[in-house]
């Protein structure tokens, strides 16, 4: 057998690759590059207008960042698993509206503020889970591709939100909701701290636990995942329900910020989420992506938005800048892939 071992080793082309230098490793690390880009942006915007470098602006950036990260992390997990979720923005508005109706009726019938808010959160989360479940059923059993399945729920949710509200925000919830929003601990508001906790938990489950391993495996080669005995349908259900849950939670964040359930509050958020995920280095073909990348991608997006406003540039330029960032990120990834294939 020993002889066989050496033969196989040679046959398999065993080679010892030398470890690349530390600096090279650091610069080929996409997370580090993203961080560098973000730091340069902060320096640049601060040079244009020194007001940018202040706690007040940081608060604003983080307040925009918090719900975006929630949605983007759900999107990240879906994309690593080889799918796409277009319904997250619609879930934000829909869950906020349903939750607002529930809280309005509870508040109207004299239920205490905190209890009403707890029910409000639960409703948002449940609506998100439910839409995620519908997405997975459409994918697993109606055999729709994820793009179409989630386009269907996007249309249904955003449409229903408008129908139920006739387009107007739903007010009349408990006044305590507004009190949750103000900043405390410097720029760290309650919602931001909640998001940091979610980031930590998701990092663990995506990169250190079986949940993430199965997600990467399915996105990388779903046939191999099934052949290895993984229950792919069940896992896809979990992935889309997680994405829905996080979008529902983001819906509640918007409710707190606006003090009402606006049917249009999540409009277009799915595109920002996908942008954050792609800038963060994930591949839309599945099997690739990191939580840290998406967190930084979302931070870069919200920094650009605030920075453009403070620099006196028409904020409508944001879309153009974001488009440029996506192009750069996607090009880097394509180059790396070619390099990987050549190695």
């Amino acid at each position, binding site marked *: *057998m020993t002889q*066989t*071992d*050496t*033969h*196989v*080793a*040679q*046959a*398999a*082309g*065993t*080679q*010892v*690759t030398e470890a690349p230098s530390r600096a090279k490793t650091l610069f080929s690390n996409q997370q580090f590059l993203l961080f560098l880009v973000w730091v340069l942006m902060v320096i640049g915007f601060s040079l244009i207008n020194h007001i940018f470098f202040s706690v007040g602006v940081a608060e604003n950036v983080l307040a925009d960042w918090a719900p975006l990260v929630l949605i983007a992390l759900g999107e990240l997990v879906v994309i690593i698993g080889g799918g796409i979720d277009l319904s997250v923005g619609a879930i934000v508005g829909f869950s906020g509206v349903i939750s607002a109706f529930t809280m309005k009726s509870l508040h109207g019938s004299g239920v205490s503020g905190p209890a009403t808010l707890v029910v409000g959160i639960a409703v948002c989360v449940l609506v998100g889970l439910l839409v995620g479940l519908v997405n997975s059923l459409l994918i697993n059993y109606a055999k729709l591709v994820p793009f179409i399945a989630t386009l269907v729920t996007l249309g249904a949710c955003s449409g229903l939100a408008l129908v139920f509200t006739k387009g107007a925000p739903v007010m009349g919830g408990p006044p305590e909701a507004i009190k949750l929003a103000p900043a405390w601990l410097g720029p760290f508001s309650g919602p931001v701290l909640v998001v940091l906790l979610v980031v930590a938990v998701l990092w*663990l*489950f995506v990169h*250190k*636990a*079986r*949940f993430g*391993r199965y997600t*990467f*495996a399915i*996105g*990388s*080669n779903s*046939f*191999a*995942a*099934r*052949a*290895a*005995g*993984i*229950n792919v349908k069940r896992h896809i259900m979990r992935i889309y329900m997680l994405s829905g849950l996080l979008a529902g939670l983001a819906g509640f964040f918007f409710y707190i910020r606006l003090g009402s359930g606006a049917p249009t509050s999540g409009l277009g958020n799915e595109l920002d989420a996908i942008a954050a995920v792609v800038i963060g280095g994930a591949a839309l073909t599945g*099997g*690739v992506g990191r939580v840290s990348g998406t967190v930084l991608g979302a931070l870069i997006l919200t920094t650009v938005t605030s920075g453009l406003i403070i620099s006196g540039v028409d904020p409508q330029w944001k879309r153009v800048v974001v488009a440029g960032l996506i192009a750069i990120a996607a090009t880097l990834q394509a180059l790396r892939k070619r390099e*990987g*294939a050549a*190695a």
Partner: protein
Amino acid sequence: MSEPGEILYEVRNLSKRYGAVVALDDVSMFVRAGEVVGLVGDNGAGKSTLVKCLSGAHQPSSGQVLLEGVERHWHSPHDAIEAGVETLYQDSGLAPHLSVSANVFLGREELKPGILGRMGFLAQKSMDTRAHEDLERVGIAVPASGRSVSQLSGGQRQAVAIGRAVAWASKVIILDEPTNHLGARQAREVLQVMRSAKQQGLGVIFISHTLPHVLEVTDRVVVLRLGRVVRDAPTSEFDAESLLGTITGLNAT
């Protein structure tokens, strides 16, 4: 070398229809413990369908699947794997974005002890070490457990796929075209891995178009043509010409 023993894995009167198309028609075959059975046939003869029924990926329309004499109904590949039947699929058995060890342990990850494990956290270091040991035990050496499979050469990938199947198989191993895309030397090593699996008392089913390999390594050959078994005989009764003739149906059997 151990002599072939009792019948380990068997299908009886198996049929598989896809709508009006009959892919398998009343197929019966078996493999004994410590035996290598070659499964050959032209394109469209039903080999892939039979492999999928054997591995649990497809459910037969009618007929029986028996493991150690007990009738089994696989609802998914998971059921067959649990029962000790491993399958190496043609080409697409690995997840390229995952590491070598993640692929070896795919679907049966080792978890950390205690509460962390119950929450699904992976014992990555232990899996890296064990993957390396398992592949070595099978007779396959691969650079590093932590390397991504996409960075390996075609031969190395195939080595990992075969190593994984042999390392986990406790009863039967089904190899669908394992020598495809391999150089002559790598193919030799794959045949050697099959022989050692046989010596360990596994039942080996070897599907291949490469007839010299089939003649070299198998004890018995089952020939499929148009969804039916047309010949089931010891390998010693064939030579390259007669085997080819039986596959294509151009000579009387």
